[in-house]
């Protein structure tokens, strides 16, 4: 056992602790901001089931496998599952939340550009999990009336 001085180790531990505090504070702050759902966000009900996604818009329109949204608007997803756990994911927009039977999970996003993005399932759900995929289609907003 050491008769030598141990101060370099304590300095090092101090640096690590400081780094972790910094990471934690930044993460806390960023998460607080992204979780703040805008009041005017339009609700889209998302249902996962083996092995596809279906969507219901606020006006009652339903879609399967494809989701059409307007650029520049905020949307709030209410995510459910009919059978086993799934995870609703639009990776390009960092939308990721589990679909769990018996509960409703919410997450929001606001597409900034017109385009197409992949929707996928990120939680193992069986036979066709690998192909439980869909498309997000972000369209031009209608001219406001």
């Amino acid at each position, binding site marked *: *056992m*050491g008769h030598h001085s*141990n101060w*370099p*180790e304590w300095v*090092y*531990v101090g640096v*690590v*602790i400081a780094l*972790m*505090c910094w*990471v*934690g504070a*930044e*993460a*806390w702050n*960023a*998460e*607080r901001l*992204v*979780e703040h759902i805008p009041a005017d966000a339009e609700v889209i009900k998302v249902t996962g089931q*083996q092995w596809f996604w279906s969507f219901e818009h606020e006006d009652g329109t339903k879609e399967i496998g494809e989701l059409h949204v307007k650029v520049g608007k905020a949307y709030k997803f209410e995510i459910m599952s009919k*059978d*086993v*756990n799934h*995870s609703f*994911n639009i*990776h*390009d927009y*960092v939308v*990721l*939340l*589990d679909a*769990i*039977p*018996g*509960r409703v*999970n*919410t997450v929001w996003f606001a597409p900034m550009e017109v385009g197409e993005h*992949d929707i*996928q*399932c*990120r*939680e*193992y*759900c*069986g*036979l*066709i*999990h*690998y*192909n439980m*995929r869909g498309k997000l289609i972000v369209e031009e907003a209608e001219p406001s009336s």
Partner: protein
Amino acid sequence: MVLELQKPRPIWQIMFSTHHTDVGLLYLITSLAFLFLGGTLALAIRAELFFPNANGGYQIIADSMTFNRMFTVHGTTLIFLFILPFASAVGNYLVPIMVRYKDMAYPKLNAIAFWMIPPAGALIWLGFADFTWYATPPYSIISAPGPAADMWIFGLKILGISSVLGAINFTVTILKCKHPDMSMGQVPLLAWSFLTSSLIVLVAIPTFAAALLMLLTDRLGVSGFFNPAMGGDPIAYAHLFWFTFHPEVYVLVIPAIGMMYEIIPRFSRKPIFSHSSGIFAFVLLSMVSFSSWAHHMYATGMSFTEKTVFMIGTLAAVPASAMHVFNFIATMWNGRIKFATPMMWAVGGIALFFSAGAGGVVNAAMPLDFQTHDSYWVVGHFHLFVMGTIAFGSIGFFYYLFPYVTGRMYNERMGQIHFILSFIGTVLVFFTQHVLGLYGMPRRVYDYPPIPEWITMNQIASVGAMIIGVSMAIFLINMIYSSGKGKLADTDDPFNLGGKYYYPFEAKNPHH
């Protein structure tokens, strides 16, 4: 130390023995057999993912269910049937010697704990379940086909009991049977690693043991703990599962760190930089390992506050891990380092441990985890630990033990080639998988859309896996050949380290 293969004995004498080195040998052989079995599945998985199936790419594995079963059994095997039994092998050989006792505290219990492993392994392999290594309900209740899933559940149940028995034995051996002249502060760090990891086992495992029973009765339809159709809650299972298995990852890694604490000072020909800080970091890790389990569950819809609590709990474990890294580097500093095979594995393992930890911090930071969670990033992250750190430490230690177990030397050149190829392969597979995850590829997929970046990265990872495969073939040949025909080892100083750092355990075992 015993020289198992120097004095050939009939196999049944070893099988029915309760002596710690015999049980150690049984653990050793079993764990290595499962390393090769589980590794073969990994190669098949990587072969399947080399090409996407679109546009006439061909399938290696005929259907997705077979693939799902393969990654489930791959993970289960390497965690429970390779890493844990390998650690037990090392503990059996060395813990009694290090605390200067004649055997484990309860030799019969020790043999029983070992003999639970082969039947559990058989249940897992013959069942070949598909519900991933965490058997999440409600999939595991309503969607996972019968006997396979039930066999997995029983297999894990048996392994859990075996772990608890082993942990009791190590704890008592170290605390109660240690030589009275030896203070706890003098107990070598490898033995400390077994003490702390055993204490984690005793606190952590019962929770999952209960969850497994509840899962079983849910499957039988007589209860609905986790089945939403019967008013149950799948999230409850996730908490029970991770309450056991986040601490369990430290049960896996702590003995491997302990093994590095044996290798690094000897091959640096210097005493460990700080014995007491090693002990401190082990004890600290064993406690903070319980503060972070729900970092696996950020995406299940936890509240902001819950996520924050578990993020802090996770980050709190980092300084303790970082202390070990410091201790290793400070020990090597100014040492007369001899880069023989065991040292190469240990140093490589430390480098990968550091990279893995950095990735872990990213996962822990809540907003970043929504990029990485359940993507290939996570697969890369934990493989840098389980393969890069734990398997590296274990394999290095295996080379280190080899002369003491067999009385012969392995082929040094082949050992070094084994390391270099494995290191290159590990970097290729698991660093690439981190990036692949950032590109959004989900884990546990049998096939993927032909996105050019995904294809390239999958191919790099698959090539890396094949390189590891080749290195492991070299390992196998080296082991088999050298244990029979290798040149006789000088067991006083098999690695030619000279001076006082050569022999791990002055007190030879009185039994032999």
